[in-house]
């Protein structure tokens, strides 16, 4: 009844389609920022793949770069894959996936709020957890909080 797609075959299909922008790792696919919207759209809309559910979006700070992690679920094929995108720390910008999955909207806003990565093409790029005028992005490794450092 359920077929499990395996990561290698997905990677091969993507490489055929998009070439050098896809890197297959043992347990995730890495793509370049520029190719992200196309590849995500392809994964979502291609019959046989049907990754129609975006489980979550999150980011990590590796001090020299950011990495965004997208967890995609194909309910039809009972398969979960992770997409990763590297992103420079100076002008952190990534194309938004809110057009493909509406659920990405709030999570991208949260990433914008806490990491300072802005998403191009997002319909409503504002802070979500902290308030307008707050200085800094707390989940960045170099974040310093005055109250925190004073120890009170």
């Amino acid at each position: 009844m359920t077929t499990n797609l395996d990561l290698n075959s997905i990677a091969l299909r993507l490489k055929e389609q998009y070439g050098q922008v896809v890197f297959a790792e043992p347990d995730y696919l890495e793509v370049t920022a520029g190719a992200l919207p196309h590849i995500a759209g392809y994964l979502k809309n291609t019959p046989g793949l049907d990754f129609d559910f975006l489980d979550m979006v999150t980011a990590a700070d590796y001090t020299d770069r950011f990495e965004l992690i997208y967890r995609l679920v194909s309910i039809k094929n009972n398969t979960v894959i992770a997409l990763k995108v590297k992103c420079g720390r100076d002008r952190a910008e990534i194309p938004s996936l809110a057009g493909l999955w509406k659920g990405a909207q709030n999570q991208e806003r949260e990433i914008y709020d806490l990491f300072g990565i802005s998403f191009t093409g997002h319909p409503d790029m504002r802070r979500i957890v902290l308030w307008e005028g707050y200085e800094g992005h707390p989940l960045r490794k170099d974040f310093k909080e005055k109250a925190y450092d004073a120890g009170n």
Partner: protein
Amino acid sequence: MEIERNPLTPASEIDLREGRGIESLRAASQHAIPDPEAWMNEEIKRNLLFTTVDGALNWARKSSLWPVTAFTACCTFEFIGASSPRFDIARFGMEVLRASPRQADLLVCAGTLSWKMAPQIKRLYEQMAEPKWVVAMGACAISGGIFHDSYAVVPGYNRLVPVDVYIPGCPPRPEALLAGFETLRKKIAKDSITRPRA
């Protein structure tokens, strides 16, 4: 030197003195002390209570503490436990949780408060009519708890609103909550209308 001795009062003299005392007491006690309530007829006797203005007001206030529905985090669930039948704050006239601050006189600060939510809580407090009281429930409400040094959390409700009673715990059990409310009721009972309000 010779010691001067007073002669002993003879027994007959003592008896005479005692007799005079009894006679005068008896003469003065010919009638029963009048009942101070004698002027009241039955109807009045059964329907009048004497107290002070403070006593009556405080009794009414402490017996009808209506909490406003404004809860921010996990401590809330212990409050819900306290307000449901097992612990039953209805016994103390507190079960009327108001959805409007205009009708409430108790703010139970149950849980972590983020700075983003802080203006709303302050506003709710300001919308409540006097007299009003605030109970800080749990570590987070008292001092920010485990989040006290967070960039996003208010380190204690007392930065925003004047707190009357602190109930420690993470979260405090319903029994602790009931004890806290009892403390608040005692505090209210000692209040006076002549006390200037902030």
